[in-house]
């Protein structure tokens, strides 16, 4: 009997030879097994969102994608942002400014749009998901978490999420692990390209809030051309920051007709009309 899966299955991939080295073959098959031949990349804000807004965005996006009935392949980041512990818990926590093993249970994840994956997993949606995580600094296993970014100037640090079913942890090589957040969306594009070319998937970049990295991604995807299967982009107009800024950049919008936008309260019906949720 197959044992129920526990935690997050980690795939370690180096992209030093070719970008496609970050493709996990078994997860490619999983994504291609989603009931609908559509792939949705969810991208946008995390660290700079208020807690309530982050929580709301993940629930809202999972629901708009069909919730328990989501049949799409969904790609997003697979990280959790953790607020640093308040001083005084214990010496170990104070010295590291991160939760030690004994106090790892005190971690309160700071939610963001990437939590859409854990929400869909909780709902046991039939659509398959994969989380992509670049190692920003050399990954460290400490305090029951794998830490992939720890900038002392920030009041948060970033760990690999233990609530997504599968996380592809991408590094340049074992000797030079560090990547940038832009590598996350580039690896997502590699998966999406294969699913589009070989699995006849239609694709959508769903953009909620977001900062400079999200902007880089959207500007890049908007330039991709395809005669019969456009790289569709949907901006959530009232989600804030770059999603809103790009929505209002009318000259850029005019030059990129495959980029559309809608308000939060329209998202569910728009995704349905676009054919990314079940009929």
């Amino acid at each position, binding site marked *: 009997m197959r044992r129920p899966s526990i935690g997050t299955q980690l795939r370690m991939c180096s992209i030093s030879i070719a970008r496609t080295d970050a493709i996990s*073959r*078994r997860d*490619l*098959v*999983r994504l291609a*097994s989603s009931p609908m031949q559509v792939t949705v990349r969810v991208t946008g804000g995390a660290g700079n969102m208020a807690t309530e807004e982050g929580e709301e965005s993940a629930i809202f996006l999972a629901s708009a994608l069909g919730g328990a009935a989501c049949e799409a392949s969904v790609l997003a980041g697979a990280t959790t942002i953790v607020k640093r512990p308040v001083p005084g818990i214990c010496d170990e926590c104070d010295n590291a400014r991160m939760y030690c093993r004994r106090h790892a249970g005190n971690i309160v994840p700071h939610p963001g749009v990437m939590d859409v994956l854990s929400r869909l997993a909780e709902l046991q949606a039939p659509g398959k998901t994969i989380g992509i995580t670049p190692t920003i600094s050399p990954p460290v296993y400490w305090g029951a978490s794998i830490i992939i970014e720890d900038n002392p100037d920030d009041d948060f640090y970033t760990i690999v999420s233990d609530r997504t079913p599968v996380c592809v942890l991408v590094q340049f090589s074992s000797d030079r692990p560090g990547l940038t957040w832009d590598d996350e969306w580039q690896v997502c594009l590699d998966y999406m390209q*294969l*699913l589009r*070319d070989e*699995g006849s998937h239609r694709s959508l970049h769903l953009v909620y809030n977001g900062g400079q990295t999200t902007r880089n991604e959207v500007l890049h995807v908007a330039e991709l051309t395809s005669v019969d299967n456009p790289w569709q982009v949907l901006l959530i107009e009232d989600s804030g920051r770059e999603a809103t800024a790009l929505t209002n950049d009318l000259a850029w919008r005019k030059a990129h007709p495959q980029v559309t936008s809608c308000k939060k309260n329209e998202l569910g019906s728009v995704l349905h009309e676009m054919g990314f949720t079940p009929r």
Partner: protein
Amino acid sequence: MNSLQISYDDFFVPGKGRRVTVASDHGSNRVALVISNTTEGVPFSVLVRCGGMAGIINFAGATARSDRREQERQFYFFQSMFGGNPDMPFRTANFGAMSGGTRVLKSSLNEADPTGIMTIVEVPGLLHRINPGIRTLGHAPRTAETLGYEGDHSSFSIADEADAKVIANPDIHLLWLVQKNASDTSEWDGDVQLYPELMEIIQSTGSGTAAQVFWSGGGVTAKEIAVSLKYGFPILLPRGSGRVVDSMVQALDDAWHKVENVHREALEELFATPALTRNLDCITVIDSDGNGPRQGQRWLEQHGFAA
């Protein structure tokens, strides 16, 4: 029950070397062709097309030409086992059916009657005809120095043996050719280490079981049995189908004196390898005639290939 019953001559229409076009259009009627080097692993393009299948069965064994009686016996055995015989009703799940992906012709493509004949590689196409929900794949080593069009460019020839022409099987969805590299051809066992990786990947995604069905066969088939045992795939051996399958069944019965000399060395090596013999209980032996197809149906049910 799967409804369609097909006669041998309806399947292999005399004089028809059917068109095989090199293409990669998903969902079209053409055979998609993927060529990869052995060092590359299983190509992404092959994997994506395997998504969503309820398990996979590889059919391996004899591709040598036999007489018409034996060809028909094999044809109707598999037709009955997979629900194409109203007297043995059975409904299959929509799984992936895989084989060597070639078609052996009765004569050269340039001669008057380039008709295919029944060998194990035809089983996926036959099953797709019985249940159109079954997806079909072929895997073959590139053994010919050059690949080429033959017979007024009507078919794609992938090997040329002394007494037979081999073309890409026109009744499959995708043919995956494996070569050492662009300059070097492979031996006939060039894909034997690689296609089980594809089966293992499909099985590990939780899509269903990966299993092997053998029918007769020679030295390459013996290697395939060993590789399947290494992975622990369920294996079905129809007793009486011939050659290495019968030798394997005799070895399992400890009747080594009956094992054909030509297979003895390979099987002795297999039975001397603990990593293989500890998986011998993956093997199910059934009859190749009479009640064999019914026994095969029970095996299909046991491993999740029934609807």
